[in-house]
C-alpha cells in the first residue's frame, strides 16, 4: 500500500450530467474529485487545491479557452499534473496534445478510464 496520498482529479466538462457521471465514476474508483464546467473555473480550483494531480477534461468547453488550451496552461503551471482528454468531437488532432497525455473518445468505458487513472496515480506516487 502506497503511503503517498492519491492525487485528486479535476473533472472539466460543460455538460452537467456527463460531468456528474465522470465525478461519480472517479469517486467510486477511490479518487477525490473536483469539478468545473469551464476552463476559468477549472484554473481557479487548480490554484486553490494543491492535491490535484490529474486533469480530466473535455476538449470542447464554453468560453475563450477550450480543453486543449487548458491542458497547455496546466502543463505550464503545474507540469506534474497528468492529463486525460475525453471528447465526443470528431477529427481531433492528437498531435497537438501535450506529451504524455491520454485521449479517450466519448462515450468511454468506465473501466478504461479508471485503469488509466490508477496507472497515472502509480506513476505519480513513484514521482513524489
Amino acid at each position, binding site marked *: 500500500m502506497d503511503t503517498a496520498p492519491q492525487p485528486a482529479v479535476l473533472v472539466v466538462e460543460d455538460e452537467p450530467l456527463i460531468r456528474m*457521471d465522470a465525478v461519480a*465514476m472517479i469517486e467510486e474508483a477511490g479518487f477525490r474529485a473536483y469539478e468545473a464546467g469551464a476552463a476559468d473555473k477549472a484554473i481557479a480550483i487548480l490554484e486553490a487545491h494543491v492535491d490535484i494531480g490529474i486533469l480530466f477534461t473535455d476538449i470542447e468547453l464554453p468560453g475563450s479557452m477550450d480543453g486543449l488550451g487548458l491542458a497547455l496552461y496546466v502543463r505550464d503551471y503545474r507540469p506534474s499534473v497528468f492529463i486525460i482528454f475525453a471528447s465526443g468531437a470528431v477529427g481531433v488532432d492528437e498531435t497537438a496534445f501535450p506529451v504524455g497525455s491520454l485521449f479517450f473518445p466519448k*462515450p468511454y468505458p468506465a473501466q478504461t478510464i479508471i485503469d488509466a487513472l490508477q496507472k497515472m496515480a502509480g506513476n505519480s506516487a513513484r514521482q513524489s
Partner: protein
Amino acid sequence: MPVTKVGNPTVGDVPPKPEHLPFEEIFDAAPALIAVYRGPDHLCIYTNPAHNRAFGNRDLIGRKLRDACPAREDQGLSERLDRVFELGTTLEIPEFEVTLKVGRTQPTRSFYRQTLQPWRDAGGAIAGVMSFAFDVTEQVEARLRAEASERHLSFALEVGEGVGIFDWDVDRDAMKVDARFLIAFGLDPAKSHDDLPLKDFLNAIHEDDRTRVAAAVQRAIDTGEDYEEEYRVNGKGGADRHLLARGACLRDAQGNPNRFTGIVVDISKQHRDKHALRESETRLRTVLTSLDQGYCVAEMIRDAAGEPVDYRYIEVNPQFEQMTGLKNATGRRMLDLVPNLEDKWAKIYGRVAFDGKTVRFEDQSEAMGRWFDVFATPVLPYGRFAVVFRDVTAEKLTRESLRKSEAEFRTITEAMPQIVWATRPNGHHDFYNARWYEFTGVPEGSTDGEGWSDIFHLDDQRGARQRWLHSLKTGDPYEVEYRLRHHSGQFRWALGRAQAVRNRDGEIVRWLGTCTDIHDLKVAEEQRQLMLAEMNHRVKNTLAMVHAMVSQTLRQADNLKDASASIQSRIGMMAKAHDQLISSTWAETRIIEVVETALTPHRSGEGRFSLAGPDIAIGSKQALALTMALHELATNAVKYGALSVAGGKVAIIWSVERIDGDDVFSFSWTERHGPPVQPPVRRGFGSRMVENALAGYFDGKAELSYDPSGLSFNLTAPLAGLTA
C-alpha cells in the same frame, strides 16, 4: 578675155580704154565675183570674168552703179557701197538673192555672199569700194529645201489627219497625189511622186491589208460603187498608220472607167482611241458580267407634266435577271415588266437621273416581292442612270427574324425573376437583363467586358474566374456558387450557371447564363448544418447522459431486474422530456408544462401533488434536467417517501424574487406526511442528478435535505440560468 578699163568719162565719147590696174591679173583669175568701184558715185572701174558671167555679161565698166542697176534690182547694193565708202569699214552680207532674167529663159535665182571692202589711194584716203561676192546658191537652196521639208512635216504633224487627195488615171495607171497624201503614206512630200503606178502605193500598204484594198479598188472600178476602206500603212520607225480611204471611179462618155479619185485620211489617232476605248469597254464588260451584283443602265421617262414616271432599260448584266426575276429587260419599260410597281422607284430614280443625285438605300418592292440594296448614280447622256444593286430579301428575312427573336429574348429575359446575362464566344459580357442592374445597382454597361467579377466577393473571385475560363476553353457548362454584392453592400450567395449556344456547325456563338439568388437557401443550409451539428451534439450528449444514467444504475443496482426497471423508466422519462421539447421547437418551453409532464406518470389522481409558481420560460437543457430531477424525486417519493403511504403529499413551489438587485429563481420540493426519512447509504444516480447535475444546468445551487418530517429539495439559481 579682154579687160575693159575705165578712164575719165566724157559725154558722148566712146569710153576710153581703161588704164592697167595692178591687181587685174589676180582678180581676173579669182573664182569670186569681183567688182571695183571708184569714188562716192561708185564708178565701176573693173569687173572680173566671173562677175561678168554671173551678171550676164552686162557692161558695167565706166558706169556708175546707180545708172547701171536700177534701184529695184540692185537690192540695196548702192546703199551698202555708200556706207562702206563713208565709214571706211568692211561690210559682210552673208546672203543676198539675185534673180536674173536673161533672155527668154526662166528667171534664175541665185544666192551670194558678199564682202564690200574700201580701198585707199596712195595718200591713204578712201578711193573706192571693192566688192567680192561668192556664189552660195547651192548651199542656200539646200537649206531652203530642208526648211521647206521641215515646214511640211510640222504642218503635217499639226494638221494630223489632213485629207490627202489622190487622182488615178486608170488607163495610164498614173497616180497624182498631193503632199498630204504623201505624208499620210509616209512618203517624203518634198520628193516628186508624180505619175507613179498604183502598185507603188499599194506596196506601201500593210501586207495583211493589201489584198483586201486591191480587191476593193477593183470592185469599185467594176461596179461603180463607192469605195471605202480602212487600212494600215507601214510606218517608219515602228508605228503603223491607220488610214481611211474613200473614193469613186468615174467613167467616160463611153462608160469606161477612166478616173478614180478620192481622199485619204490619217485616222491613226481615232483608231488608237477607238482601240483603247474598245479595250476599256471590254474590261468594263468583263467586270459587269462577273459582278455578283445586278447592274443596269436605264433611261428615265417623263410624263406630260415632266414628272418621272417610268424608265426604260438600256442595258443589264447577267445578274440583273437573277436579282430581279425580270427576263429580257433590255429595251423594255419597267412598268411593262412590273405593271403595279410602286411610284417611289420612278421618283427616286428620277431624282438620280435629273437632279444628279447619287443615292444608296435599302428598300422593298412589294410588287416584286423583294428587298433591294441599291446604289444608283446618274450617267451620261442626261436623263440616264446606272444602278448597282443586290436582292437582300433573304438577308432581310433573316435579319427580321433575328431581330424578332432578339426582341423575344429580351422580353423573356427582362421578365424573368433571375438575373440573366450573355457573352460573346470569347467571354466578353455584353448583355445583362434588368435584374442584374436592379440587384447590383451598377450603372448600365459598367460591367460589360470583364468587369463582372468585381461584383463578386473577394474570396470567390478567383475560383469563379477559373471555372469560367475553363468553360470558355472547353465548352463545358459553367456552374459556380459565389457571393454577389447587393447594392446595399450586403453580399448574397448566388448560383451562376451558363450554357454555350452553338450554331449549326457546332461552333459556340454565345454563352447564356443566369445568376440565381440562393442566399436564403444557403443560409438555411448553413443553419441546417448548424442544427444538424447541434443535434448531433445533443444526441451524443443525450446518449452520454443515458450512458451515465445506465452505468450508474447498473453499478448501484442490487439486482438486474431492479436495474432494468429503473433504466427503462428513466429512459422513458428522458424520451417524454424530448417529446415535449420538440413540440415547443426545442428552444424553450413553459416551466408549468415541464413539471406537469414530469409528474404525469406518478400521479394517481388523488391530488397528492400541489403545484404553485409563475408562468415562466425555461430552456431546453434546463427543462430536460428538471424533468429528470423531478422524475428521480417522484420515483424516490413513491418508493420510500411521502407517496409510498396514503396521505403523503408533495408540495412543489417555485418563484422569482429580487434579492440584492438580482432576479433569483427558487424551486422547492417538499414531502409531508410520509414515513420517517433516512439518508441513503450511498449516493445513487438520483441524488447526484438532483444535487449536482440539476444545479449545473441552472448555473445555481441545489440541495437535498433529509429532514425527518419529509425529504425536501431546493434549487436556487439566477433567473437567467433558466434559459441560458
